Every structure is written in C-alpha cells, then in structure tokens.
C-alpha cells in the first residue's frame, strides 16, 4: 500500500512544480492537508492570480466525505481521551480509515472487547503520511528537470486518480446520476465561461440534482 502512494505523489509533485510550487511549499501542503484528492484538485486549479476562495471551497467539498468517515469512526474512538481522538483524526485518510475500520471488525469478531487498535491505526496512518510527503516533495524537486510533463502523460494522472476514487464511491447508476449532471454542466461552463467557474457550477448542479433525486423517507 505504501508503494502505491509513491507514483501518485511523484505525479502530484511534478504537476505542482510546473504551477510554480517549490518542494518546500509542496511538503508543507501535503503534510498539513494530507488529502490527495483535494491536493490534485488544488494543483489543477492553481493559477496566477491564485483563486484562493475557489481552491479552499473545492478542498472542503472534495474532503466532505471525511464527515461521514469521522462519524463512522466515532464509536470506535469513544474510549480514547478527547485529545487523542482529535490527534488521531488528523491522520484519517481513505487508507487509514478503511484499514482501521476493517481491522476493528476483525478483532471484534475474534472476541476482543474493543475492536479499535490505536497502535495499528497510527502505524498505517503515519506510514502513509511519510510516504505521501516524501514522494510529493521528491516529485516537486525533479519536476522542473523533466520539462514538458504532458509529453510523458503525467497530466493524465489527475483524471486517472479521480476516476479511480469515483469507482470506489460508486454505489450504482441511480446514485451516480448527479455525477453526470455535474459533468455536463461543468463541461458546458468550461467551454462557454472564461475562468475556473466550471468547477463550482458543476458541483452545485450535481448537488441540486442529488437533492432532487434523493430517496424520500
């Protein structure tokens, strides 16, 4: 799993370097933010002048899945002191969440009173964190030497990562209909409206569709 992180980090770092972000800035961003999907989105939107509000808003929206992940982790963290729970949550990413959650269920099935193991969670989370920061920073350092990254297809890493994440989020064609609305609205806005409005327009259109198509209780 740690090895899987490395090429992604290199691709993100190389793209960031071509948007003018140095290795230092990339290390700080990936270390403090530590959420790859939002970092790919941010680097994709990175421009001069910097659309600060748009990047921060998109970061919040891409990472909104953490809200549901944190809620599912809450009962597992209930026995910990507050500060430990808040510290542990800083390192909650797709990998550490999924592995700790699966590990907790396995331990509970084996008869353990408490399923959640903080040492196990910490080992996974810190491992991914260090591998992520290291590979992103290395990518940013070697990025300028590569030259035109498009010739190497590195720009295709962004849609590849996003499509693979979306496959993980896939729960059926019905639930994915808002995605299609987002795609069509974002693409049209991109073609017709100058600037980076297409991201916000697509996201909002998809959410309205999700609200409209939501199952009635």
């Amino acid at each position, binding site marked *: 799993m740690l090895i899987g992180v490395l090429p992604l980090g290199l691709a993100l770092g190389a793209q960031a370097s071509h948007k003018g972000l140095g290795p230092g800035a990339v290390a700080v*961003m990936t270390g403090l933010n530590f959420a790859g999907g939002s970092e790919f989105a941010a680097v994709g939107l990175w421009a001069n002048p910097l659309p600060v509000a748009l990047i921060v808003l998109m970061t919040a929206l891409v*990472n909104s899945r953490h809200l549901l992940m944190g809620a599912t982790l*809450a009962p597992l963290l209930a026995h910990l002191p507050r500060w430990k729970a808040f510290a542990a949550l800083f390192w909650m990413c797709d990998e550490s969440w999924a592995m700790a959650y699966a590990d907790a269920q396995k331990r509970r099935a084996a008869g353990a009173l408490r399923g959640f193991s903080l040492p196990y969670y910490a080992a996974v989370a810190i491992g991914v964190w260090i591998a992520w920061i290291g590979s992103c920073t290395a990518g940013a350092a070697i990025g300028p030497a590569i030259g035109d990254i498009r010739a190497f297809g590195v720009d295709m890493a962004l849609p590849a990562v996003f499509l693979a994440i979306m*496959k993980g989020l896939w729960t059926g064609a019905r639930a994915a209909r808002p995605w299609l609305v987002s795609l069509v609205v974002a693409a049209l806005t991109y073609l017709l409206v100058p600037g980076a409005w297409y991201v916000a327009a697509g996201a909002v259109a*998809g959410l309205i569709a*999700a609200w409209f198509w939501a199952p009635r209780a």
Partner: protein
Amino acid sequence: MTDATTVLTILLMALVTYATRIGGYVALRNRSLSPRARAMLEATPGCVLISVIAPFFVTGEPAGLLALAVTLLAATRLPLLPTVLVGVGAAALLRAVIG
C-alpha cells in the same frame, strides 16, 4: 517563488480539511441525517471530482480524448495505481503516435 498568498491558501486548505476530519466525529456521532441530507453528502465528492476533470472530456486534442477513454475503461476494472499507470502510459504513447 513562495509568496504570502500561497502560504495563506495552503494554511486555509489545511484548516478546512482538518475541519472535515473532526466535523463528522463531533457533529454527527449522536445524530442521524435525513435521507436527503445524506444523499447530498454522499454525492458531493463525486460531483466535485468529475467537475474538476470535466475539461479533459471536452478537449480538442484527439490523443488526450483517446487516452481519457482508455483511462476511464481502466478505472472500471483496475485498482487505483494500475489505473494511473495505464492512464499516464496511454497519454504518453498516444501523444507520441498521434501528436
């Protein structure tokens, strides 16, 4: 190259991301969401991700479009890392061949 706006953006990103990490733990642990709110929350990440990459779907570059189709196909069948390798490889190859 690192100016104040860059630092501000990175710090704000880190702040809102940490807020999403503790927000679910703090606000949602003793509460159940309405089906409508839950459906919207579950649709949000996918809607944002597809919106960010929407330009790739309407690019005028044939090699890029073909590579995207290959990437999409790979994403439906392969895990994340092979999908990225196939996507990057296809883009490099197709650009070298088609230009």
